[in-house]
């Protein structure tokens, strides 16, 4: 079975903190993605990666960065968390841009 694991289900951080969201997939997929999901706005793509050490900006990359040092791991970094980054963060992976498989999500609250 496909498995995408996000390290935290719920996270509470303070404004200005550096935040790391980790995602690991066990399916040897080339492609990994980070989305955020907000009520009324749906899923928005933050960053994606088609290979190790490779990253591409999605639709809303401002305030975020990513790291992909190993094929199975894709990290999302909030350099200086702000309250407007309070959201549900979803990691996904896919083989050669086929079907997307999602993790359970991390609900981040920035106070």
């Amino acid at each position: 079975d496909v498995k995408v694991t996000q390290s935290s289900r719920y996270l509470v951080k303070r404004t200005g903190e550096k935040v790391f969201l980790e995602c690991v997939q066990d399916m040897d997929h080339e492609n990994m993605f980070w989305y955020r999901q907000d009520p009324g706005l749906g899923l928005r793509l933050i960053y994606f990666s088609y290979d190790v050490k490779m990253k591409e900006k999605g639709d809303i990359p401002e305030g975020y960065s990513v790291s992909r040092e190993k094929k199975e791991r894709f990290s999302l970094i909030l350099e200086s968390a702000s309250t407007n980054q309070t959201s549900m963060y979803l990691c996904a992976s896919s083989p050669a841009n086929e079907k997307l498989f999602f993790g359970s999500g991390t609900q981040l609250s920035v106070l």
Partner: protein
Amino acid sequence: QKEVEQDPGPLSVPEGAIVSLNCTYSNSAFQYFMWYRQYSRKGPELLMYTYSSGNKEDGRFTAQVDKSSKYISLFIRDSQPSDSATYLCAMRFYGQNFVFGPGTRLSVLP
């Protein structure tokens, strides 16, 4: 006009009803279509995946794609309270990332 449109609902139906969920889209280049189910505070779960036009059936679920009308549907037969969730459509064309609809919230009442 948004690239993918979906009625947000909520849609409430009695248990056992046939549910029809729909998305319209504007980009005729889309070739790959998916439906996801998302329970509250969980990640989306892939339900159906279709390529190009036509129907696909899996148990109580049927996905339909009408490329000439730029319209896709998900039908749920004999709906159950456990089907209560938000349903997201997603689509893409070769070499591009997925585009998601905003989701339709469904409640199946016992």
